[in-house]
């Protein structure tokens, strides 16, 4: 008896599922900090502060872990920060970022917080610790947004 062979298809191209891309789900159906992303769309980098104990958080929260107070206020962090540390991704970029490499990543000091971010418009050699960097907003085709910083030239 001969054995039957049949070629079957493996779907080679699929729409990138949300849990395999890096950017967070942002609308109110998926997160209770959708305000953070709405603020970003208006050009403002914000985070939450506890109205009870005054603690400033990064990332933004919905509950203060110090006093379990839920009444948090949104604070505008401004648009300028200072480079605390940086490097450049040259080898081993993840899927979705492979074509961006090499790209710089830094820790930006802003309002006493240390926020990690892509640092655009610069190569590693152009940067030094203490450099002033400015906020920029990147917009994804699907409407989501995220923040980056870039080195100011002045």
């Amino acid at each position, binding site marked *: 008896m001969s054995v039957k062979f049949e070629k079957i298809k493996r779907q080679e191209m699929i729409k990138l599922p949300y849990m395999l891309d890096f950017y967070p789900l942002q609308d109110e159906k998926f997160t209770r900090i959708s305000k953070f992303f709405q603020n970003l769309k208006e050009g403002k980098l914000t985070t939450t502060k506890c109205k009870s104990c005054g603690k400033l958080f990064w990332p933004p929260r919905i509950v203060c872990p110090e006093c379990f107070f839920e009444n948090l206020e949104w604070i505008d962090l401004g648009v300028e920060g200072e480079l605390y540390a940086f490097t450049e991704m040259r080898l*081993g970029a993840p*899927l979705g970022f492979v074509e961006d490499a090499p790209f710089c990543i830094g820790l930006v000091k802003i309002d006493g917080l240390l926020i990690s971010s892509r640092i655009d418009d610069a190569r590693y050699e152009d940067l030094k610790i203490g450099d002033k960097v400015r906020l920029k907003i990147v917009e994804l085709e699907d409407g989501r947004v995220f923040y980056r910083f870039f080195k100011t030239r002045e």
Partner: protein
Amino acid sequence: MRKVAIVGGGATQCGKRDAGWRDLVQEAGKAIFESVDNLSPKDVDSLIVGAGQPERFIFQGHVAPMVAEYLGITTRKVLARTELMCASGQAAIRYAWACVTTGMADVAVAFGVEKMYMPDMAEAQTNMTCVLDREWDGVNGLSAPPFFAMTAQRHMLEFGTTKEQMALVSVKNHHYSTMNPVAHFQKEVTVDAVFKSPMVAPPLNLFDCSSMTDGAAGLILIPAEDAKKYTDTPMYIIGTGQASVGNVINNLASLTEWVPLKMAVQETLRTANIKRDEIDIAELHDCFTISEIMEYEAFGWCEKGKGGKFIEDGRPYIGGKIAVNPRGGLLGCGHPLGATAILQALDIFQQFRGEVPKGRYVKDAEIAIAHNLSGAANVHSIIAYSRSLK
């Protein structure tokens, strides 16, 4: 609380293996049970499996019963998987120890496994970006190498640590791994070779970084009072410590001072009732060269900021102040996340029994510690082992 002994263990060859996750499990299982004559899988009542992210690397969850099945174990007391990313294996040993010491288990296997080579390595790199908080840090392309690159940059700035000093850690650990048959890397490297290896994320070159590695390993834990039924030369777990501070980079205690490691060291010395200078072997988590330098400092073998000088002076070599990573470290042996801590413990076990090659044998060693960090170095876990019970 019962005292706990390790009476046997085994490992696969580590490296870029032409083998699947299930193959690695079976190879390690065979090695584990061949290490003890009169103990079989049927005697094991509990199994803890350390696995970093099988959901991503092999698209498989619920892996603890899968390991039990492949090892021929029917668990009657405890079965679970531990995930603490780079310290997943150490979490497995800690919980297996906790189960045996409390009487929740009588014969437990602490197992660790990771299959990290994938057809498309960018997919593997993607997996590694969920080690940090993916929505706030990973989203920026931050995986371990850029994070530790920035740690190194700050350490160099604040303490004058040099790239040469960092490279010397790689030279030492690759030297020892040439004498470890299960190690991923079997060749010596020089400072020059580290400098000429491709730049991953400055200031870290490729040989400053531990590698993606396939491997599996396991240990058998039983109450110390029963140990001599199985071997004349068991190893004992005498203490353990673990601490964490924060998770997102903003909430770390410090980039250049690993506060949770100092906390874990104190807790380990306290629970083991030992002094730091009694430690003969230290298996430290050298995921990057800068890590080992900062660990010399946090353990207190040198002053804060002098870790670079410590390696430059040859102090962490066998015969120096403290033998650090005579196994070959993660830099030389590779870093199969879930298996790493098990491999460290197994090598200490073989050190105590005099089963390692002469060139990396620490003579008359009585007490050893094994350390793993995980995430953004915000978690540090340590176990203290001894050759005899005081």
